[in-house]
């Protein structure tokens, strides 16, 4: 678990920088582009990257906008959590990933995943953190919209084959996400296996994911994931992770999960960003 001192000072620097930035909570989602620019200029200032004029190439990793407002997932995930989770935690992973990959050949984030563990802690933790969170935001939807979605025939057939039923899959997922089962920080995933013919339930520690060689029995392609780091739920749920996990289902966009499933099976690859 040893990290080089330079990485740790970068983390200290970035965290301090983020704490001093005041992010107004009333920025409307239509100004999302300008908020994104603030992040990118902020990252450039912290890490001494070249000025905005020539640094904003397509190569730098970007913090994606949330597809909904911070309060959209209430009451199951509170607005303050969404704001800090996106604007601080995810943003820090992006900033640190840019620092860690500076001067290297530009690759889409998905392409960093397979060899992320071998690439070392900076890429593993920050690349994984960026991919995982980008993936997570997209599979969630406001509860009233989520309620109108359902698994496709393809997905439902795989669920039934692999778990017996959707309810059984949810029960196993919740058990895998329980504090005694996934200890400390990590993620729980439903993935399509290498053979593309079954779904697997997998837990990974910290910011690993099953796309990474060595993270699980084989490389697998996530179609649904849940962040169980304490920062994902602490403000609203404190130590009550099981309550957070059982409320998660209210926010799952099964249409998106179904699309993920169809995509990863057809392409034999992970969902790209």
């Amino acid at each position: 678990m040893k990290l080089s001192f330079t990485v740790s000072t970068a983390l200290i620097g970035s965290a301090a920088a983020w704490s001093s930035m005041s992010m107004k909570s009333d920025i409307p989602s239509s100004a999302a582009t300008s908020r994104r620019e603030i992040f990118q200029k902020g990252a450039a200032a912290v890490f001494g990257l070249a000025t905005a004029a020539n640094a904003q190439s397509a190569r730098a990793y970007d913090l994606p906008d949330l597809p909904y407002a911070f309060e959209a997932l209430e009451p199951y995930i509170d607005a303050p959590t969404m704001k800090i989770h996106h604007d601080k935690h995810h943003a820090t992973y992006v900033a640190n990933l840019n620092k860690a990959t500076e001067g290297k050949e530009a690759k889409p984030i998905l392409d960093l995943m397979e060899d992320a563990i071998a690439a070392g802690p900076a890429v593993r933790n920050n690349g994984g953190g960026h991919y995982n969170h980008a993936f997570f935001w997209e599979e969630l939807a406001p509860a009233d919209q989520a309620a109108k979605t359902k698994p496709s025939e393809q997905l439902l057939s795989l669920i039934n084959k692999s778990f017996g039923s959707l309810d059984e899959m949810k029960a196993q997922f919740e058990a895998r996400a329980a504090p005694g089962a996934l200890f400390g920080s990590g993620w729980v995933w439903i993935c399509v296996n290498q053979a593309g013919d079954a779904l697997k339930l997998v837990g990974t520690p910290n910011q690993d994911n099953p796309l990474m060689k060595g993270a699980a029995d084989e490389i697998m392609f996530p179609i649904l994931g849940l962040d169980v780091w304490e920062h994902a739920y602490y403000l609203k749920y404190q130590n009550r992770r099981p309550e957070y996990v059982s409320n998660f289902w209210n926010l799952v966009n099964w249409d998106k999960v179904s699309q993920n499933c169809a995509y990863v099976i057809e392409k034999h690859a992970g969902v790209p960003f």
Partner: protein
Amino acid sequence: MSASKLIVDKALRASISLGSSKIPSELAKSSAAFLSSGATKATLPDLPYDYDALEPVISSETMTLHHTKHHNTYVSNLNAGMEKLDAAITAGDVSGIIALQGALKFNGGGHLNHTLFWENLAPTGKSSRPSGHLEACIINCFGSVDAMKSELSAKSIAIQGSGWGWLGYNTATGRMEVATCANQDPLQATTGLVPLLGIDVWEHAYYVDYRNVRPDYVKAVWDIVNWDVVAERLAAVKK
């Protein structure tokens, strides 16, 4: 407990666990009951100060949650795990014994770590800096107290996910070292170092007060370290 009784207990426990054919089953069962009844239950220790005593560094809200929910849960789960372990040992269920190890490490480590943590904190000003033998040792091993704080801070902040930063004592070399452990892995069982000072960097330790800014929390914790306790721990180890 006399030494001879202790030896007999261990031999008895071992022979029962291996299902020795030399012990009649009724005797094995009553021996197992005897051994189980002596098992010590873990209990949640009281804090050495009020819940608001560490403000403003750590809020009353955090201390209450951290002690009455998080630590308390480790204690309950540890006791449940130890009961299951006792049953598995009694039954000679090696597979069952092994299956319990993760939960025992999580919950036993959680209990040990938090017990040490509460003790090595104190209200601001109560024990403001290392002195005497402790200070001399720190200077000897790190060059200065500031250098030690700097190293422990940096390594604690850099922990990925959940874990603890420690100042520990290496009994083999007679020197202090900074070490980190993941999750609730206990320092001594994991590294052999004797714990002198621990800093909890699980998000639950600081999220209410510092949100994602772990560095601010770690920096502030230095104001509430109980150096007297750290000195006592060092003295105890060197005896």
